[in-house]
């Protein structure tokens, strides 16, 4: 098999080849490493390539096979991790200077479960610092380029994770999704991005941004690959008290259910959004047709508080971030800047370690948590959050999944919102609801924009959302759409 054809294999096919011995894990890794060598100078998806430890892991898998040992469901599958996943012995910085040089002394649950399943970790992927952003430009390091066009961002905050999968420099990746940070970059890069329900996947070893919203999720080239990764990641974890102790269903089997009889909800009022690009709107209507042709029925749903989701989210996520990021003070980990007193040490360390967007969100979070701001902002946002969650629960009485565009636009140029953070925040309008209500969500490829003088051909995503723990329904709907389309087979020019 040629390296080019190895890179196109599904996760299950890679693992089957490795288990049967028709491909060696080292051979698989070599194919993806060669692709990374070719694409990384132009894409820059990786903050750290772990070529040496990956090669050792692949050799260990091949040795296990030769010796007749058991191989896991992801045997030899090269997977990249967003830089906020804690990896024992492997530099982990959450994309921030404040964790420069931090080599974790323990293994996070995600890396542990992937390694136990036989995966090979290819390295740490670029991101917006502490996952705060929608473009991967909030970084002290180089921004990631979209493999579809080098002047466009890959989305964010899991931009490196999406760009690496689109470029084929790993077979799949993990990202984190606090307000859309898996789904939106998946949409921008033309790949699949799955945000499981809150608590479905452990948060232990995922560096916290906003703990009541954060969830880890896979980015892959097709829906079944996402199901295969969720199968390994899902399930209770004694190290995360918010992980849900519910049985883990067969997600791959769910992908074969089809869409016959599926009720798809559409919130029409959200499509009146003034920033919705006409090409995104048209692609969305075509995706609804695809689902209907596959046997689904369409139903209008009402989400009366949806227009307040972005405001609710930015109060809550900044408040939680201000609290979570208080731990970075130069005392126990990361570099310490010299100060005459303890307080000056804290301030100098944090001033040097955080970049502008992180400081902006800490200041906002501090504002809404102050005695003067709490009732009007934080307390009120928690009440509106409950109303939003109720809206979704009521809507799901009349449908199985809710469909929408993933992002209002097909993509953003590098630097487009450099001086206007609010404009960037408003782009999260379709994805935030799933985080506020703890729902499962997925973005799947739904076509390309028409190339013109104003804009190149860029991917457009379809988002589907389902009630908490209804990942089987979500995956069935997403797989049915994928089976009826060719969008997921398109490859970017830089791959």
């Amino acid at each position: 098999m040629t390296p080019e054809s190895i890179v196109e294999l599904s996760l299950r096919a890679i693992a089957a080849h490795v288990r049967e011995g028709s491909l060696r894990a080292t051979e698989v890794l070599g194919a993806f490493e060669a692709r990374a060598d070719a694409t990384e100078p132009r894409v820059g998806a990786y903050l750290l390539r772990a070529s040496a430890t990956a090669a050792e892991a692949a050799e260990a898998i091949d040795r296990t096979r030769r010796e007749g040992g058991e191989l896991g469901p992801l045997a030899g599958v090269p997977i990249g991790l967003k830089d906020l996943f804690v990896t024992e012995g492997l530099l982990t910085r959450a994309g921030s200077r404040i964790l420069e040089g931090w080599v974790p002394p323990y293994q996070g649950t995600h890396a542990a479960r992937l390694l136990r399943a036989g995966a090979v970790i290819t390295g740490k992927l670029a991101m917006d610092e502490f996952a705060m952003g929608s473009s991967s430009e909030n970084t002290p390091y180089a921004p990631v380029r979209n493999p579809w066009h080098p002047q466009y961002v890959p989305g964010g905050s899991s931009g490196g994770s999406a760009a690496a999968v689109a470029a084929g420099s790993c077979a799949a990746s993990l990202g984190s999704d606090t307000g859309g940070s898996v789904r939106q970059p998946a949409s921008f890069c033309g790949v699949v991005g799955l945000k499981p329900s809150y608590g479905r996947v452990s948060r232990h070893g995922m560096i916290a941004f906003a703990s009541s919203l954060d969830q880890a999720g896979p980015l892959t080239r097709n829906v079944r690959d996402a199901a295969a990764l969720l199968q390994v990641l899902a399930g209770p974890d004694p190290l995360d008290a918010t992980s849900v102790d519910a049985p883990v269903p067969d997600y791959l089997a769910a992908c074969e259910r089809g869409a016959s009889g599926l009720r798809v909800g559409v919130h029409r009022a959200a499509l009146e959004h003034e920033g919705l690009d006409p090409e995104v709107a048209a692609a969305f209507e075509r995706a609804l047709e695809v689902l209907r042709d596959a046997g689904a029925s369409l139903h209008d749903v009402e989400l009366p508080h949806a227009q307040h989701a972005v405001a609710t989210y930015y109060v809550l996520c900044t408040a939680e971030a201000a609290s979570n990021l208080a731990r970075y003070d130069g005392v126990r980990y990361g570099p310490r800047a010299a100060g005459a007193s303890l307080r000056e040490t804290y301030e100098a360390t944090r001033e040097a370690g955080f970049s502008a967007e992180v400081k902006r969100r800490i200041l906002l979070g501090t504002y809404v948590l102050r005695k003067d701001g709490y009732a009007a902002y934080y307390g009120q946002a928690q009440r509106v959050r409950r109303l939003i969650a109720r809206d979704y629960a009521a809507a799901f009485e009349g449908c199985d999944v809710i469909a929408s565009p993933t992002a209002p636009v097909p993509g953003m140029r590098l630097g487009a919102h450099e001086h206007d953070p609010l404009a960037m925040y408003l782009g999260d309008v379709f994805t935030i609801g799933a985080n506020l209500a703890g729902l499962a969500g997925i973005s799947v490829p739904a076509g390309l924009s028409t190339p013109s003088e104003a804009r190149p051909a860029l991917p457009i995503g379809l988002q589907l959302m389902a009630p908490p723990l209804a990942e089987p329904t979500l995956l069935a709907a997403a797989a049915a759409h994928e089976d009826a389309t060719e969008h997921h087979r398109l490859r970017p020019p830089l791959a």
Partner: protein
Amino acid sequence: MVSRRECHQLAALARLSLDEEEAERFAAQLGPILAYLEQLRAVDTTGVAEHLPPAQPGSGLREDVAGPSLPRERALATAPDVREHQVAVPKFMED
């Protein structure tokens, strides 16, 4: 609107030290963001409790059983200043 002075006050609460240029930029940016967040005040939340995640059976509290943990040397290995097996910081109390 947020003044530069208020920005410095927020920064002090959050243990950040902003220079004047940063304080001016953040003051200019926080104003429009807070104005946008103002819309929440208009939502009728009479009788609505603050959101709490649903209680999850089987998660949360578990038996307190001693298990293996990080050896002290490894737990301290990434601290910037360690003396006598303890994290060291600048003096913060008078003798």
